[in-house]
């Protein structure tokens, strides 16, 4: 009797240990709402992440925040208090990610965002110590555009962007980059994702006679100004941002978006990269893994950011496991330190080298210049 009691107690204790030894990853993505086209491939990518890291089982808890800031905060709170997660991946968009920082810092849980804005991780302070992000900073992409413009002899450029944080952020960064390259910004217009016509804005831009026009929109709504420009007989160069780098943009844009130039993460044209390109292999790994599971041509660059979050997490978890048990504050601290120490991690979008001052870690290997030719993306250089 006594013996069997001990056995039960031991079994229970062991069961508890094995529960706590699991690594719990909390995910909140915008799988519905306006950012759904970004969030869905990210959600799918979570399914491709490793179920075992360093011999430990990994549990993923995936929540949808419906592109809504309040829901993202609620989700984060739930992940931290109910599920006691070791790390948070998300969210898809900048406003959500910014709102989640406070909770992550307060509970000392590392967070890896898949949203673009540099403000999520800069400047690294007492709170943002806990925050990392995988997508390229806008300034890097803006510089790439300005560089290409000055190389092809563009002197004046007009800007049309979303009337929201995305367009606003791009305007700021692009004005900086254009200033550096001595390119004059001769017109600035805004439009909304849901607009059915941009004739007014386009007429105004064209009347300023710019050498090139930059459209700062994300996803298929960015095709609207370009179609309107074509309709009004504009023949100059059109640039887009990496926000359009998915196949739906090609489908909706059709022949009106031919010859558009844009910067993008290398995985967009992974198969066309030269064999010695540092990101070719890791980018192809992701593309193949995704397309094997979800079908040919289904991959998008947004899912790549989630994959990269997984790459960082995997690296850091195997480091942190050497120092502490999952489920403890010590483990989360070790995980944070390990994330900050990630070096030469090849992801779908580039090579990550984190430092105490840079929680993004991508360099110029994290972008390539791409054009649209015969309805497909074409690599034209770094």
């Amino acid at each position, binding site marked *: 009797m006594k013996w069997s009691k001990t056995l039960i107690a031991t079994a229970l204790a062991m069961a508890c240990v094995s529960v706590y030894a699991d690594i719990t990853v909390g995910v909140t993505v915008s799988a519905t709402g306006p950012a759904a*086209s970004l969030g*869905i491939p990210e959600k799918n990518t979570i399914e491709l992440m490793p179920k075992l890291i360093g011999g430990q089982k990994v549990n993923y808890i995936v929540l949808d925040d419906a592109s809504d800031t309040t829901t993202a905060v609620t989700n984060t709170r739930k992940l931290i208090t109910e599920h006691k997660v070791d790390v948070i991946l998300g969210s898809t968009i900048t406003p959500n990610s910014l709102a989640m920082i406070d909770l992550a810092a307060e509970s000392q849980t590392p967070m890896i965002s898949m949203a673009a804005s540099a403000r999520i991780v800069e400047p690294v302070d007492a709170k943002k110590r806990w925050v990392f992000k995988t997508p390229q900073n806008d300034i890097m992409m803006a510089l790439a555009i300005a560089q290409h413009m000055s190389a092809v002899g563009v002197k004046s450029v007009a800007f049309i962007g979303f009337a929201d944080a995305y367009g606003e952020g791009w305007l700021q960064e692009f004005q900086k980059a254009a200033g550096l390259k001595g390119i004059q910004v001769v017109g600035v217009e805004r439009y*909304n994702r*849901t607009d*059915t*016509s941009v004739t*007014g804005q386009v*007429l105004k831009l064209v009347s300023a006679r710019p050498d090139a026009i930059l459209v700062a929109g994300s996803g298929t709504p960015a095709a609207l100004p370009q179609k309107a420009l074509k309709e009004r007989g504009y023949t100059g160069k059109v640039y887009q941002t990496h926000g359009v780098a998915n196949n*739906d943009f090609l489908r*909706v844009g059709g022949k009106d978006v031919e010859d558009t130039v844009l910067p993008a993460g290398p995985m967009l044209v992974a198969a066309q990269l030269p064999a010695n390109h540092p990101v070719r292999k890791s980018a192809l790994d992701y593309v193949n893994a995704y397309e094997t599971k979800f079908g040919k041509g289904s991959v998008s660059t947004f899912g790549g950011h989630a994959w990269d979050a997984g790459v960082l997490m995997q690296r850091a978890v195997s480091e942190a496991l050497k120092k502490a048990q999952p489920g403890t504050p010590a483990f989360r601290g070790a995980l944070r330190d390990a994330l900050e120490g990630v070096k030469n991690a090849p992801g779908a979008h580039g090579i990550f080298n984190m430092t105490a001052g840079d929680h993004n870690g991508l360099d110029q290997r994290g972008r390539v210049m791409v054009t649209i030719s015969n309805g497909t993306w074409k690599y034209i250089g770094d």
Partner: protein
Amino acid sequence: MDAQIALLLAQDGIVNGAIYALLALSLVLVFSVTRVIFVPQGELVAFGALTLAALQLGKFPPTIWLALAMGVLAIGVDLRRALNGDQISWRNTLLWSTLLPISACAWATFARPTSLPAQVALTLLICTPLGPLLWRLAFRPIADASVLVLLIVSVALHGVLMGLGLWFFGAEGSRTPAFSDARFTFADLPFNGQSLVVVGVASVLMLLMFFFFGRTMLGKALRATAMNRTGARLMGIPTGLAGDLSFAMAALIGAVSGLLIAPLTTVYYDTGFLIGLKGFVAAILGALVSYPLAVAGALLVGLLEAYASFWASAFKEVIVFTLIIPVLWWRSVRTHHVEEDE
């Protein structure tokens, strides 16, 4: 701004205004007959556009499943009512919940239309029954509730349909090819065929509506119901029929608007809401009762939007929606408020 730009903007404003006018008319129609402020009107616009896009990609449009499922539910509801001893007009029930959805399903499955006119006809056949089915499932059981309750149900329905839209069509949008690729210049002003098609179809539909309400028996019955429901019922006009008919017209107009707008812009599962909202602003300008004022309001909204996007693109929506405030204020000052006895 020179004269040509002003004219181009006016052209753009009129094309958009024509779409808003159609939606404003159908909002006025539904409200005056059933007292429902039909918020999901916008979703029907998106459904129309995306159904055609799905047909063109050779896919089976999921809106057919929606129509079939709602049809089955509607029959269930009527069976229950029949068991309770209510008089059911089975001819109408079977028309909206069985005949139209099933023939649409059969057409899409067996004939797989490939020509644009046939696809357009099929799209309208799929979308039109959605109106009366929504009426039968969501509004008819509470037809005598207050305007506010009907509005709340309407908003809920908008949320449900938008969610279904995301599920059916995905987050990305679609464009359909233009009905006319013609381009020509008249008095130094470039025109494209599609915008003429929009204005033309909208005008024809409006003329048909005016004819329908002014000349036909059914139209007059609807108008009578709108003016006085009880009186109309006493004269032998079935108010259920009025609901079916006004919602069918709203769905048809919504789908047509969707088809008209889809070649001009990319339509997403949630695009319709904003278009519907602008139609609503126009309908408010007509105080939700006057058809001609609603059309004038729609043109005003379209033009205001076009010029605002030229002068102050960052504030375009603000300018358009601010329009509603002085109008409401003016109306509240001018009209003597009567508490409706319902």
